[in-house]
């Protein structure tokens, strides 16, 4: 095992010398043909013989107790195998991140909580029977309105502790200019297209679950803990995951349900959550209340900055949406205050949804900067330029790489920012008011311990194995590119196996750390193989040149296959954060630009074009990275204009738990979007030199749209999403 701890800057020789042009190239996804032909197998597809189907009966009340369950009518349905109402392991909710889901049958703490399982020969019978299970419950008053609850300012939960540096009140009192505004964002569903789904089967005392999950190593432990069995008896498979977006970081309740049901009926069991059940059984992003206060001089130089927030969680969840996370190192200012207070509700769990913190926090901070620039009569980019810190303004640590100013400049030039008219409402085309807006994007970078095994076969082909997942992020292809670049092979000479908990443990997919952490593990494993090849060539690894499946040292050139001497060469790499990680301030950066048209009569908003310029360290695959970034920008459009999970505060139920009324972006909502990368290998971040991209694209994207709306029509909406009813009263006279 080659361990690589980031105790100092690192730049692998294999990536510096090798000249394959494989890494970074827009290589088409190697699993693409499987995906476009429907042969890629997701969680609820490949089922063993004799598979039965499960359905979950849920609580109609939002708070209280179950007094009794009458399953007789359900049991009488033809094809029903069993109705399970008495298993104490029945999960009350999905596990958030790496914890076990709380279990228990009788206490109800949110509407839609599982109370019973029906197992039947067919999905039709299971669904019918589930509707016939009579649940008698005793309702109690519930805290269903997060906005009405009083925040706990000393909850001690979450990974982001309150930050209070300097005397904010005095600094604001002394400032020449004070900005103070409040913003709200609604709850959001992750809403992956593949619902949470699992096929589970037992072979004796060994359980296999084929499930839709982002982090299967952790899932394995969670499933074992909840079922009360040894983790070695659990195998988790997730070779293809139909989208995650944070919702599949933990173990879904359906995975436990499937395992319990399979054990009870002695057959494999398959379950996919109906779409409307995903709204309550899968965690959602907390709604937020935010307040931005800035004290600056008349030139816009910030002396004090505060980003306060309130988020919601239920009694059993520990996750706290880290709203100001992206604001922490964004702008200069001696006096700094960032906090996230908490209200407790009797609603489904809140959790990590794509870019927890930044996705919603950037709405407040980046709209505030736009408002402040307008107030000061400054260009929004100029205000940001004047407040670009030299070092991390809180910790004083140096930035690993930070090309934010370059992102602004490149973006302004590419987008035609100089054509923006500073006066709102000044540009009109027929019935449409046209505006331009921009925002900064910042997403904290994480590197997480990860392992990968690389095997150079006797045929000269390479196998990469890790329990990492590909949730649409391009992992299969990226890891093949890393190994190909290191070992001098095209990607079609590299096979990648993912999504099996028997393989070396990785960090999984989450927090934008997947590609860089797993990619670094592959780098380290390849370095070990290079060292071995060097020994066999009687040369130092840095003297080796690898190209087209051959190793050269000077004039000597030997095919890789020959160097295996008939035995595969295998190595495992383990990437770990270290002193360099903690000693530097690391983030991905970007600048978002949007042009919108606001209908002067109806208030309808159409996004006409967008541009994102991003600095993400080394670009591992230009096509998949751009796709990720653009996908995030589309989320920003939808967050700015459409997405809003609405709770019926009388019952605690979501009023719009499906795609008919929870409006994700559709094709017609999305204009041409340009994405450009400013590439600088980040040698402090990790061995492969890459930083996160999947969540950066959403950061600031919605704020750029909201700022463009203000520039178009002069109406500033601080309660997201910006629907036309909030615009229409403020529109200029027709």
């Amino acid at each position: 095992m080659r361990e690589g701890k980031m105790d100092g800057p690192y730049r692998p020789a294999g990536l510096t010398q090798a000249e394959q042009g494989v890494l970074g190239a827009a290589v088409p996804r190697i699993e693409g043909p499987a995906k476009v032909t429907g042969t890629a197998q997701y969680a609820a597809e490949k089922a063993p013989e004799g598979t039965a189907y499960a359905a979950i009966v849920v609580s109609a009340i939002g708070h209280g107790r179950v007094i009794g369950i009458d399953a007789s009518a359900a049991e009488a349905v033809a094809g029903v195998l069993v109705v399970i109402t008495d298993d104490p392991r029945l999960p009350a909710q999905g596990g958030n991140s790496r914890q076990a889901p709380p279990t228990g049958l009788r206490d109800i703490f949110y509407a839609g909580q599982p109370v019973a399982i029906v197992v039947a020969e067919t999905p039709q019978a299971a669904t019918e029977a589930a509707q016939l299970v009579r649940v008698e419950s005793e309702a109690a008053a519930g805290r269903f309105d997060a906005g009405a609850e009083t925040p706990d300012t000393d909850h001690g939960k979450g990974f982001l502790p309150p930050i209070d540096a300097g005397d904010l009140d005095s600094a604001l009192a002394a400032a020449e200019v004070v900005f103070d505004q409040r913003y709200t964002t609604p709850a959001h569903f992750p809403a992956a297209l593949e619902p949470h789904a699992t096929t589970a089967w037992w072979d004796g005392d060994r359980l296999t679950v084929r499930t839709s999950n982002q982090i299967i190593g952790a899932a394995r432990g969670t499933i074992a803990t909840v079922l009360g069995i040894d983790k070695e008896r659990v195998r988790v498979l997730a070779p293809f995951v139909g989208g995650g977006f944070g919702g599949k970081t933990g173990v879904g309740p359906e995975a436990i349900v499937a395992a319990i049901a399979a054990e009870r009926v002695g057959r494999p069991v398959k379950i996919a959550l109906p779409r409307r059940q995903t709204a309550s059984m899968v965690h959602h992003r907390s709604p937020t209340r935010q307040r931005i206060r800035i004290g600056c001089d008349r030139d816009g130089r910030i002396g004090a900055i505060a980003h306060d927030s309130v988020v919601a969680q239920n009694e059993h969840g520990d996750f706290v949406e880290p709203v100001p996370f992206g604001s922490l190192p964004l702008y200069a200012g001696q006096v700094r205050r960032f906090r996230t207070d908490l209200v407790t509700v009797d609603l489904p769990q809140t959790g990590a949804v794509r870019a927890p913190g930044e996705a919603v926090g950037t709405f407040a901070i980046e709209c505030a900067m736009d408002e402040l620039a307008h107030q000061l009569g400054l260009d929004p980019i100029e205000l940001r330029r004047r407040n670009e810190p030299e070092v991390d303004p809180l910790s004083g640590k140096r930035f690993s790489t930070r090309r934010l100013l370059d992102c602004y400049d490149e973006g302004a030039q590419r987008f035609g920012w100089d054509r923006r008219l500073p006066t709102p409402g000044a540009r009109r085309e027929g019935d449409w008011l046209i505006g331009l807006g921009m925002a900064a994007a910042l997403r904290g970078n994480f590197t997480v311990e990860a392992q990968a095994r690389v095997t150079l076969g006797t045929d000269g082909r390479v196998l990469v194995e890790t329990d990492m997942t590909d949730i649409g992020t391009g992992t299969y292809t990226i890891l093949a590119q890393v190994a190909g670049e290191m070992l001098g092979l095209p990607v079609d000479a590299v096979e990648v196996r993912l999504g099996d908990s028997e393989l070396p443990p990785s960090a999984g997919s989450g927090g934008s750390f997947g590609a860089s952490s797993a990619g670094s593990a592959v780098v380290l494993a390849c370095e070990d193989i290079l060292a071995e090849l060097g020994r066999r060539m009687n040369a130092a690894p840095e003297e080796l040149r690898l190209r087209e499946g051959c190793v050269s040292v000077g004039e000597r050139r030997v095919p890789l296959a020959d160097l295996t001497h008939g035995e595969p060469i295998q190595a495992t790499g383990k990437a770990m954060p270290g002193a360099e990680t903690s000693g530097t301030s690391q983030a991905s950066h970007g600048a978002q630009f949007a042009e919108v048209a606001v209908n002067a009569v109806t208030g309808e908003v159409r996004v006409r074009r967008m541009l994102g310029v991003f600095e993400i360290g080394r670009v591992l695959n230009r096509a998949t990275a751009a796709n990720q970034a653009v996908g995030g920008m589309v989320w920003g459009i939808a967050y700015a204009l459409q997405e809003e999970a609405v709770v019926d505060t009388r019952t605690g139920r979501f009023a719009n738990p499906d795609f008919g009324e929870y409006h994700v972006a559709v094709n017609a909502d999305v204009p041409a979007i340009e994405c450009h990368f400013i590439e600088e290998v980040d040698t402090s971040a990790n061995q492969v030199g890459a930083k996160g991209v999947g969540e950066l694209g959403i950061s600031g994207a919605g704020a750029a749209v909201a700022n463009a709306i203000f520039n178009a029509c002069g109406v500033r909406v601080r309660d997201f999403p910006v629907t036309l009813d909030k615009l229409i009263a403020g529109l200029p006279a027709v």
Partner: protein
Amino acid sequence: MHWTINGQRYEAEPDIRTTLLDLAREHLGLTGSKKGCDHGQCGSCTMLVNGRRINSCLSLAVMHQDDEITTIEGLGQPDNLHPMQAAFVSHDGYQCGYCTPGQICSAVGMLDEVKKGFPSWVSDDLSSPSLNDQEIGERMSGNLCRCAAYPNIVDAIAEVAGLSEDQRQTSQKVSG
């Protein structure tokens, strides 16, 4: 009961309430068609029935015994891709891949609708609509992609439709 899917005859005796989608996925081993919502809201289950695209989750299998049904498996295979499948690969018109079979079946059906002169909400000429990026976006909006690979999906479809850059950019009727 019997069906003709991808030119092949299948027989099964599913529960009479079984949808065409569940028939394919749970009885015939044709799992290429995906179930995202089971409500006709996401389009992941799109199949071609007598050449027309439908949400197979909203239609009962028993109704389609005399129809010609095409699923993603019938369009092409990994070593023999349909041009639309190949274009989705080369333009990276997906991420997770879950909506992809539905997008591709829908795109194939959509191009045929345009050829037959079906107008859309954004058509300038209702009697003889022509395709451009805006038309593609409008006509493909029944197929959700939560990864939001929409710009690449439009690129892939435009390539298969043989649209020039100028043709793609014609007409911006709705958005000012």
